[in-house]
């Protein structure tokens, strides 16, 4: 790996390097600017956002939105905890089973592998819809108000399984597997000791997506939980937002107009995104450095 980086530097062309840096820098900037506006807005007073719109820095510094979110800090911390548990457990199990399935689906000796793939893919095209799903889960399986449903319902994404399959096909050479088989290794061992290490970048990227899906999932919680101790962060924020927006319609008695509405939306994005942006760099190293098959072969 070390030699690789040196080689790249050896025949570096300055023009090309400049283009790369400029282009990547430019795209990154376009993506960053709205986020800066968002963070600035979240620290502004509601009045200044309504009056003057959004800007790159807070025109009237205020912590109202955050104070509103953290009115009951215990709830927010509990929600962080629930989200964390779901995300960690769910991603680990999902990633393991997804990649195992992906490995199975790319084994050529499996006669029915296309049929099995279609069995999975079909579920992305057709679904029974909301009502049957809800009735089945809550009335027949009695899974409402459990961690189980929060973890299981969003667990697998067929797209990710198929992407993993493509990655395994692309980065684990068939002869390697064949020779391991000749050496007497079983499929499970090949999967664990060869396929998993060689597909690290793919696992990292699919892992990020799966984790994000869990982290952002408020829908499962909305449908299947009514207990406060099981409310994940995104659902907590979503609930706060909708109650700010809508209780006003029924409110003759509340001073609803003084609640931060616009800035709340922004602050809630900051609160939910913050931890992810902090954790992301740790996963990134898998995309930053390459894989050498020789390393696994030995």
């Amino acid at each position, binding site marked *: 790996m070390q030699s690789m980086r040196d080689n*790249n530097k050896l025949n570096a062309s300055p023009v090309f390097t400049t283009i790369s840096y400029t282009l990547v820098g430019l*795209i990154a900037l376009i993506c960053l600017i*709205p986020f800066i506006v968002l963070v600035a807005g979240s620290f502004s007073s509601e009045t200044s956002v309504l009056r003057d719109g959004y800007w790159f820095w807070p025109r009237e510094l205020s912590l109202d939105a955050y104070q509103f979110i953290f009115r009951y800090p215990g709830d927010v911390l509990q929600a962080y905890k629930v989200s964390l548990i779901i995300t960690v457990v769910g991603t680990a199990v999902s990633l393991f089973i997804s990649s195992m399935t992906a490995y199975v689906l790319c084994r050529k000796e499996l006669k029915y592998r296309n049929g099995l793939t279609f069995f999975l893919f079909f579920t992305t095209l057709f679904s*029974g*819809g909301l*009502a049957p799903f809800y009735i089945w889960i809550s009335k027949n399986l009695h899974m409402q108000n459990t961690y189980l449903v929060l973890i299981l319902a969003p667990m697998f994404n067929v797209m990710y399984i198929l*992407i993993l399959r493509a990655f395994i096909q692309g980065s684990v050479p068939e002869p390697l597997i064949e020779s391991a088989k000749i050496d007497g290794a079983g499929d499970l061992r090949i999967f664990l000791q060869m396929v998993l290490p060689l597909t690290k*970048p793919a696992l990292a990227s699919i892992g990020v997506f799966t984790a994000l899906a869990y982290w952002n999932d408020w829908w499962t919680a909305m449908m299947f939980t009514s207990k406060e101790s099981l409310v994940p962060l995104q659902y907590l924020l979503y609930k706060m937002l909708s109650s700010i927006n809508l209780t006003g319609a029924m409110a003759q008695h509340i001073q609803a107009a003084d609640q931060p509405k616009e800035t709340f939306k922004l602050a809630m994005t900051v609160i939910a995104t913050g931890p992810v942006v902090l954790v992301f760099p740790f996963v990134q190293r898998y995309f930053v450095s390459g894989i050498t098959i020789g390393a696994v072969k030995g």
Partner: protein
Amino acid sequence: MSVNAEASNRVVAAPASGAKSRKKGLFSELKRNRVLYAMFIPIAVYFIIFAYIPMAGIIMAFKDFNYRDGIFGSPWNGFANFEYFFKSGKAFLVTRNTIIYNVIFLTCYTVFSILAAVFISEITRKWFKKISQTMMFLPYFISWVTVSAFVYNFLNYEYGIVNKMLAHFSIAPLDIYSNTSYWYFLLPFLYVWKWVGYGSVLYLAAIVGIDQEVYEAATIDGATRFQKITRITLPLLKPTMIILILLGLGRIMRGEFDMFYQLIGNNGTLMDATDIIDTLAFRSLVGSADFGMASAVGVYQSVLTLIIILTANWLVRRYDKDQALF
């Protein structure tokens, strides 16, 4: 390069062993590959429980659903639930719009994701790489509601930032929200903006997954960096690209409802140009909570998608069997 070439040679040889086992039938196939089939069991069980069993509820689209009789006992009503969609006189228009927008989105998304991934991989300074990639990911977290608030703030006629700047130079203000032509550009732009970080991660993973020995060999042969991209990186990205496009086609009838709904809403002046299947269904069913009618559009979308995906898969299969979905 050699390792990959070898791999694909093997692939061609593989079906021969499959042909042999065909004679022996299902039972011996299961027995012979019992470990592999056993490894498939967890996912099979999951999808049976969480997808196939509730899928039976799809019959609701053809029923006049009531709670007394339940899903299976409710009376059939043929295609009555579909009528509102086809009688709207816009079924063809919105289907066409949905497909066109998704094809444009998918194309732009693929091109920009690959571009971003290739250039990121060319950057040697780790901190720059990490930071820029993180930055590209940020839009993913900004919901369409917030995006639409920003866009409105930026582009609205009276006090939008763009028009304020134009006024500064004494240029007539733009009325973007009453003019379809701006949106043909804006919508794909925003789509790419939101998803490019997400998409580039996958392509970057594919690039990083390429065996580094291949590049080293090329360097020794005196290849320039540009040559390495066009001759090694891009061809090796093709399988990933094909699979991602095929999977993208699997969503071609849906499309980013939230984006259209939040950005355009019920804007009558833009509607013919920006109405997609989901927005039409939403507008028609607002406040009625009719399960049958809601799932009817879903069935329509699913059937069309199935046709499209089977055709695309068949085409890919003819071209290269290994890159097809199934």
